């Protein structure tokens, strides 16, 4: 029995994968990314060495998470930040809604936060009557379209300038042309008003520094800077796994995130926030709240085999190289975290039974593992998820799988049976030839789009019997 998310995935994949227009848009965008990413990797003296150091640092962070989280809380609270703890999405939403209600907020401006997608925060805030504006340009675009982000780093990469022009015309009545600069200025004008109106600014986080009690936010547009500068109350929603032990760890992680995320040396703004406005400072929020979110991260932590996946810095590099992602696109996954990393962690975060299909929807090519800056063993984790799925009560082999695996083993193991199978396959192939590629072809899943080579007149083993004697 297929789960609802699996049915959705299969239907969307069948629709999107053959869509050459979609494929072209993604290939063009990725082509530009690949060129700069590769230049930047060469800019490092030793990129592979950097990956090893990053993996080591994340190993230390994740495997001593209790120690580092305790330190982070102590240091950031010392400067007047209020730290909140949420075991699940509902608790996190309630904490944030509670702060908004206390502050009698009306308008909320947000910078990019995948964790907020994960807990469906916007829906909750809008439902409670708040006006919520996403300030990252890509996020703003998909918010206007009432769509989830397409990609961890490039939320609107599936859209052309023409589509964005039409969207701005329809929703903002302001679209002078389809020139990307002109369109960006439309958003700039619209959002400037919102920063000034907003009562509360909500951000995500790329890193949380234990030693000095800081949240580090990586961005290019300055929207997170403004979200953290103008409103009187600032809230950061962050997964508990985002911890880095020391401030100087950022010296390595900030450029690595930029290189893999967008192919930059460093993104335009990398900003560390350690509290509300301090004595003697010109401005800044009066209150700073940090909401630490578990939401099944501890489930993944408990799996020692796949614990390294908690080291993910959400750079999106594994999506970018993944041939599955590039062909089915970001929305097909039906998850907040798409691509290889999403296929690995979603079963842990949301249940293996419902989400195991993503682990099968991979050719296990390993391009993700090869590129991951923190060396998460992604494609092998997909194999482990498959193994774990087969142990579920519903994971037992179906009748046909039994046929395939249980009966295949003795056939493959016994030369005489294999020889018989070889002969039978030739007959089978002749019969199949009559229905080749049609719906009654038993291997139609293959032959609908691909020819199948014939069984050879003489198999290798038959040849060897003559040759090798």
């Amino acid at each position: 029995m297929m789960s609802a998310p699996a049915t959705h995935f299969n239907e969307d994949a069948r629709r999107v994968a053959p869509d050459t227009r979609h494929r072209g848009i993604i290939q063009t965008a990725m082509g530009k990314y690949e060129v700069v990413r590769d230049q930047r990797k060469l800019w490092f003296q030793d990129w592979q060495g950097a990956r090893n150091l990053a993996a080591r640092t994340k190993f230390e962070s994740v495997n001593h998470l209790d120690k580092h989280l305790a330190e982070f809380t102590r240091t950031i609270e010392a400067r007047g930040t209020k730290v909140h703890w949420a075991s699940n999405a509902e608790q996190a939403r309630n904490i944030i809604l509670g702060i908004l209600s206390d502050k009698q907020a009306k308008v909320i401006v947000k910078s990019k936060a995948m964790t907020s997608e994960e807990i469906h925060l916007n829906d909750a805030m809008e439902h409670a009557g708040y006006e919520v504006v996403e300030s990252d340009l890509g996020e703003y675009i998909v918010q206007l379209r009432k769509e989830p982000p397409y990609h961890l780093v490039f939320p609107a990469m599936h859209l052309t300038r023409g589509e964005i022009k039409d969207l701005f015309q329809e929703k903002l009545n302001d679209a002078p042309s389809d020139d990307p600069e002109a369109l960006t200025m439309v958003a700039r004008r619209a959002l400037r008003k919102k920063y000034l109106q907003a009562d509360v600014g909500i951000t995500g986080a790329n890193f949380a520094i234990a030693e000095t009690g800081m949240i580090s936010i990586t961005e290019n547009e300055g929207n997170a800077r403004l979200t953290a500068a103008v409103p009187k109350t600032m809230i950061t929603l962050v997964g508990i796994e985002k911890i880095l032990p020391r401030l100087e760890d950022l010296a390595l992680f900030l450029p690595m995130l930029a290189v893999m995320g967008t192919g930059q040396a460093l993104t335009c703004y990398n900003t560390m926030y350690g509290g509300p406005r301090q004595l003697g400072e010109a401005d800044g929020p009066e209150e700073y709240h940090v909401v630490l979110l578990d939401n099944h991260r501890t489930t993944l932590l408990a799996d020692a085999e796949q614990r390294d996946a908690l080291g993910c810095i959400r750079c999106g590099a594994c999506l970018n190289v993944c041939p599955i992602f590039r062909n089915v696109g970001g929305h097909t996954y039906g998850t907040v975290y798409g691509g290889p990393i999403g296929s690995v962690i979603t079963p842990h975060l949301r249940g293996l039974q419902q989400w195991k299909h993503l682990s099968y929807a991979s050719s296990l090519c390993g391009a993700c593992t090869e590129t991951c800056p923190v060396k998460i063993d992604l494609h092998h984790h997909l194999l482990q998820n498959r193994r774990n799925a087969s142990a579920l009560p519903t994971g037992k082999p179906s009748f046909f799988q039994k046929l395939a695996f249980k009966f295949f083993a003795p056939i493959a193991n016994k030369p005489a049976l294999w020889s018989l199978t070889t002969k039978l396959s030739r007959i089978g192939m002749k019969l199949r030839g009559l229905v080749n590629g049609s719906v009654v072809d038993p291997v139609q899943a293959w032959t609908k789009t691909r020819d199948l080579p014939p069984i050879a007149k003489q198999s290798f083993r038959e040849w060897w019997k003559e040759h090798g004697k």
Partner: protein
Amino acid sequence: MSEREIIFARIREGLSIKAHAHYGDGLPTTEEHRGVMPPVGASIEEQLALFAKNASDLKATFKLVKDASELTAELRALRDTEKWQRVATHKSPLAQTHSAALGLATLVADDGYDKHDMEQCDVGISECDALIAQTGTVLVTSRSAGGRALSCLPPHHIVIARREQLVADLPSAFALVKRTYGVSYPSMISFITGPSRTGDIERILVLGAHGPKKLTIFCL
């Protein structure tokens, strides 16, 4: 049990099974970081040249000025070409005096300001903590650069730096932050690398998404 205690209990239970450290354990030293990171020349001249190259690649403007009068002249020239009406700055020896020399309506962030007024300013003039050669980055904090908004709300951010503020690389910059503020960190520390930008529409670069469209760095 509080939610914090519940989460800590789950973390400790999860960590009771040890994972294998495939890439070694223990945190890397700064020397290890430097060994893999992008190279930076050893001499001040090389580092200055690298900063200038990075700034130019980032579409920021970087100018060495020999003294205060040259800086004033440069700022006045910008005032005239860009037709500034209002300037924002902060209490500081360099930024405030040079802003005053422009003879325009001036907002001083530390005095308390209205956010709408700050938004109406044509330029924000600030000092900084360091210039980082390796990446062409300007390091500012809420203490050194007039708070949080001054360096990102006005459409043009002008940084006045001193030559001795140049540091070689990111590890040096973080060491500097620790040395300068270790007892009590400012509430915001920002590494500014070029003017605000986006590539969210067809991966085409556009400057000035939300923050400053222009970044000019004067180095005395």
